[in-house]
Every structure is written in C-alpha cells, then in structure tokens.
C-alpha cells in the first residue's frame, strides 16, 4: 500500500495529529496580493507601513516610511505613529516584505537606492538596518528597482530600467539580508533566451509574481527612467517617448528562471494578481494606456493565453488604471484609476467576464489599493510618480481607509499627507505584533 516504511509511518503519525486537532482554524486577516511565500498575519492588521515620496516644502522633504496605527480601539487609531526619513528624494515607489516578514524593503526608482527596515523587533517602530547603494553596479546594469517580492530566503527585485535610462531591464535576486545573488534579464527579440513568441519581446519590466504550484512566474512591462522621470504631460505629447512603453507579458519557468512564452498585451500591463484558489490557474492585470482588464490563463490543454476580458471606465478618456487588488476568494477585483480618482469593484467570479458591482471616487487622484485578507478593510493612497501626480488643488495626497461591506465602501479614517508634512504616499504593507511572538 505505501511505497516505503517511511511513508507508512509518516501517515500514521500525521493522522494521529489530525485526529487530536479539532479546533477551528483561526481567521487570517492579512493583505491579499502578496507573495504566497510570506507568513500571514493571524487576526487583523495592526499597522500600515506607507512608503512615501518626499515633496519640496512639505515637512523635511525626504522620502520616508510612515507607520500608521490601524488597531481598532487604539488611542492612536488612524494616526501616524512613526516616521522614518531616508534622506533626500529618490522617487520612492514600491517595496515589499521578506518571506518571514521581518524586513521591509523599499526602493527609489530614480537613484536605484534600496533601504531595508527591521519591522520585527518593534512593529510599531521600524528601524533602518541596511542601505544598498550599488544596485546598478551589482546587477550588471539594471536600474530603477521596483517590486520587492518574497521568495524563500530571498527577494526578487523587478527593475524598470537600466544604466542608460531606457526600458530594457531585468529581475535581480538578493538574500533576505541584502546580499546580491543574480540578475535575470528580460527577453528581447534580439536575446530571446528560448522564449516562445520572442519576436514580440520588448524587454520592459514592471511586476513579477510567482504561482509556485505551477512553477510559473509572470512579468509585466512599463517604461524606463527616461520616461518615468519626465513630466507626464511632456511624455504623452512626445510621439517617440510614447513608443517606449511596454506591451508584453512573459511567462517564465520559475525554477530555472528562464522565459518560456511572450504574450502581447498592448497598452502597458502593470500590476499582476494571481488567483489564490488551488484550481484557479489565472492572473489578472490591467493596461494603463488602453484601460483594459486582461486575464492570463491556462486552458484545459495546459496551454497559456492572454485575453482581454473587460474595460475600465471609458478608455477614450484614458482613466489610467494603475493598481489592482484581488480578494482572497478570487471573487472580487478592485481597480484604481489615477486620472479620474476612481476605484471600481468587479465581480470576477467568472474571470472571463468581470461585472462592475460598485464604483466610488476616492479623491482627485488615486493610485494604490491594499485589501485585508478577509476582504473587510481596504486602504487607498494617492501618489503615482512625483512628476506624474496632479498639480494645484488636485494634488491631494492621502491615505484613506474604508470598510468594504460587499456592496459599498464605508469610510473609517483618512490622513492628509500634506497637512501632516509627510509627502506623497505610495505603497502600503501591513504589519502586526502577532507575527513575532511574545
């Protein structure tokens, strides 16, 4: 019956443990859309860490990690309880937590700096423990470190650019404590690295996310330093600049770190969200310039495809969908669009036919959205890029928190990042003391 005596013994041992266990599983309440390798918060999130761009004339003007207390009943609920400036403006953008959630990595798109904060010793008071200032040199020329994605004992940094400022870029791996491991360049038509449909490969990068049980990684594409550090108005009126945006996604053999298939997804596919269900072999993305929802999915013959499945608002008005968040049960997709400041919430129970179930204007501009694992709480921030944010009265800079009832968003609290002297809030990550024991 069993292949070896070891198998039989293990089965007996674990069966006994299972019979001894009758307690219900504790509710998990982490943010969705994170690396599946990460430890999950048990219970509600306690802190939201906000990676914030410095603004001239606002506070100290520096990029900073802002810690917000979101503990229900706390006397400082909904307030900033800690600010850690890194000094200077680096185009603070994205970051991420290590698989053990002990460290929060944040990066600067302009200077290619990386800062590593310890959030385990005191989750209410992050401490800078390491600065990496040789990312471009160590990586062999990748620049604009963007995502920071947890792998077992490692971090995968997806780049946006290179030392020349164009969009050819790659993925860079580090150990959790900040030692360089390797660089994996995105495929191009000239250097296809064995990828199918590589004639269409453009070499741009943006997000990188893994579906471990299928051993696949998916990457998306944006643009290089030359574009993302220019004012948006200049870029859109420069036909040559507008040609320098990505229009592809790449499916990789994750174990071998080799590109396997290039998909044409025109219009700058940005954030990637894999479904969580064990039989849901698909991911969503939205295209910034064409305002479309795309599904990258595996068919019954184990072939992978990319397919447009919906539109966000009125694409002719270029609402610019930016961040998305997929609920833990794969039923609900939140889509933020920057230009109209809207969040649109879709029923994606049928992933091929998203149905709009709610929409709400969050502010004059909106970018990131983070959702709790139980789907009950949603957080929004406002900033896209220093030179792409709106100006004047429309340059609202906020963190806004809501309860999601399943039908509507009910305000919980908001923080005005200009009035508080903080800057332009961007990426959010959740923390909790419960992760680190007593």
């Amino acid at each position: 019956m069993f292949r070896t005596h070891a198998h039989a013994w293990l089965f007996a041992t674990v069966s006994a443990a299972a019979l001894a266990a009758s307690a219900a599983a504790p509710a998990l309440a982490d943010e969705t859309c994170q690396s599946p390798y990460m430890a999950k918060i048990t219970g509600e999130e306690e802190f939201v860490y906000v990676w914030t761009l410095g603004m001239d004339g606002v506070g100290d003007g520096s990029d900073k990690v802002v810690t917000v207390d979101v503990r229900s009943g706390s006397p400082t609920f909904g307030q900033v309880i800690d600010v850690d400036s890194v000094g200077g403006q680096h185009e603070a953008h994205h970051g991420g937590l290590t698989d053990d959630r002990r460290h929060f990595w944040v990066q600067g798109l302009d200077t290619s700096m990386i800062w590593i904060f310890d959030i385990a010793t005191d989750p209410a008071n992050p401490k800078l423990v390491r600065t990496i200032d040789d990312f471009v040199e160590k990586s062999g020329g990748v620049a604009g470190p963007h995502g920071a994605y947890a792998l077992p004992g490692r971090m995968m940094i997806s780049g946006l650019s290179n030392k020349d400022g164009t969009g050819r870029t790659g993925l860079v791996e580090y150990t959790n404590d900040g030692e360089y491991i390797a660089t994996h360049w995105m495929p191009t038509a000239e250097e296809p690295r064995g990828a199918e449909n590589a004639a269409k490969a453009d070499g741009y990068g943006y997000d990188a996310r893994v579906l471990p049980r299928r051993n696949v990684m998916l990457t998306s594409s944006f643009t290089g330093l030359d574009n993302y550090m220019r004012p948006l108005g200049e870029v859109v009126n420069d036909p040559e600049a507008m040609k320098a945006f990505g229009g592809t996604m790449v499916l990789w053999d994750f174990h071998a770190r080799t590109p396997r298939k290039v998909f044409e997804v025109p219009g700058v596919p940005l954030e990637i969200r894999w479904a969580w269900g064990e039989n849901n072999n698909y991911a969503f993305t939205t295209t910034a310039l064409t305002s479309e929802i795309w599904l990258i999915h595996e068919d019954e013959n184990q072939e992978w495809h990319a397919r447009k499945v919906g539109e966000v608002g009125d694409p002719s008005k270029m609402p610019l969908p930016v961040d998305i968040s997929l609920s833990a049960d794969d039923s609900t997709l939140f889509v933020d669009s920057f230009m109209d400041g809207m969040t649109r919430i879709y029923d994606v129970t049928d992933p091929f036919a998203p149905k709009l179930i709610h929409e709400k204007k969050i502010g004059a501009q909106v970018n990131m959205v983070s959702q709790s694992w139980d789907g009950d709480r949603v957080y929004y921030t406002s900033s896209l890029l220093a030179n792409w944010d709106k100006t004047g009265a429309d340059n609202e800079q906020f963190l806004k928190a809501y309860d999601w009832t399943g039908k509507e968003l009910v305000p919980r609290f908001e923080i005005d990042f200009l009035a508080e002297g903080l800057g332009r809030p961007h990426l959010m990550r959740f923390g909790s003391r419960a992760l680190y024991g007593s």
Partner: protein
Amino acid sequence: MTRNAPLVAALATLLLAAPALAHDEAASPTHTVTGPADGYAFALAAPGTYSLPRIREAADAVLLDEFGAAHHLARLFRGRMTVMAFMYTRCGDICPVAAMRMADLQALAGEMPEAAGKLQLISVSFDPAHDTPARMGEYARHLRADDTRPPRWLFLTAPDGDAIAPVLDAYDQPVMAKADPADPFGPYSHLLRVMLIDPRGQVRNIYSADFLDPRLVLNDVLTLLRDEPAAALSR
C-alpha cells in the same frame, strides 16, 4: 471535520503508491515518486540547462549526531552535495511532508550511481530540548532507508537551545514558539526552508514545499555536479 483533514488527505494521496509522471529527468526505473513537480506547467528543466548562483555561505556549527558525537557542519559539507532541512520531530505541520520528500530523495538518489555517492542528506532539529540524539536516532530509524548504500542521511541536533539559536540565525531560518505549547500541530511555527549546499559550503538553492520535489532536487544536484572538478568531491 478537523482543521488538518485536508493535510491528511493530501498526505494519503502523496504517500500511497502512485505512478510517477514521465516528465522528470531524474526518475528511476524502480523507485517511483510523486511530488509538486507533477503539477508544474512545464517539464522540469534538464540538468545543466540552467544555473544555480551562489546564494550565501553555509555557516559552520558543531552539532550532535544520533549517537551524541559532535560534528562540524563545515567538515560535513566538504566534498559532497548536501540537502539540509531544519525540522523538529514533534511537528505535525509541514515537517512530515518534508521528511517524506527527503525519504523519496534518498531512495531515488540511491538508484543513481552518478549522484548517490556525491550526495548526503542532513536533517537538523531546532528543538534540542526534546529532540535528543537518542530521539533523533529513533526518528531516523523510521525514515532512513534500511540498507547502507549512499546517499547517507544524518540526523543532527544541538546540545541545547542556546546552541541552536545562532545556527538558525546564520541560516536565516525563522522559528517561533506558539502561544499554545500544546498545539496538536506542534509547539513551533516555522517556514520550511530546505537548502542545497555545494562541496565548498555554498548554499545554491532554497526549497519551499512547492519546490521540494526529489526529481527537481536531483536535477539541481546533477546541474551542480557538472561544474564540480572531480578532485573537489569525496570518494
């Protein structure tokens, strides 16, 4: 239904005899294995078609074998490929699955002359207060292949908790005591990290449960062996 009934069902599926699928490079004609690689979208990359960059130096430590004899990890690593897992015997969570994969790896590698003698398996307990050398020996007898052919599988522990703490730090292996020490799944929370270490003591891969497939690990071993000068390997 108990909380980990799905785990038991999954283990039953995994542990019961089942034919191996055909897409693994390292499959043996007599010992069939199943594992996460059966669910991958692509066939496993063939040995030597990909690279495994150095991740970090595998730290030295003095640990005890099941007879209580002390060993330097650095000396054990020298001259062999090593697959090393941190575990504890009271674990009712992920450790049994990892142990099953290690047992399959030992059996599968045992039928591959090009790998067997150049590979060893090491299980290290982070619960030395309970996992004494004698306890590790008892655990080993349930898991290790009956015969004495390679690859060998060592079961190590530490003299006490103070001795294992710096080892866990050095290997970036998070372990946390649970609030309920009587938790039926075991008193510790931990992330599964199984490491592939080359003959010079460099970590070359870190496997989570989704990638701890004996066939994938063996492909990694064969990939690294292609670049190893014979002189660097033990007899």
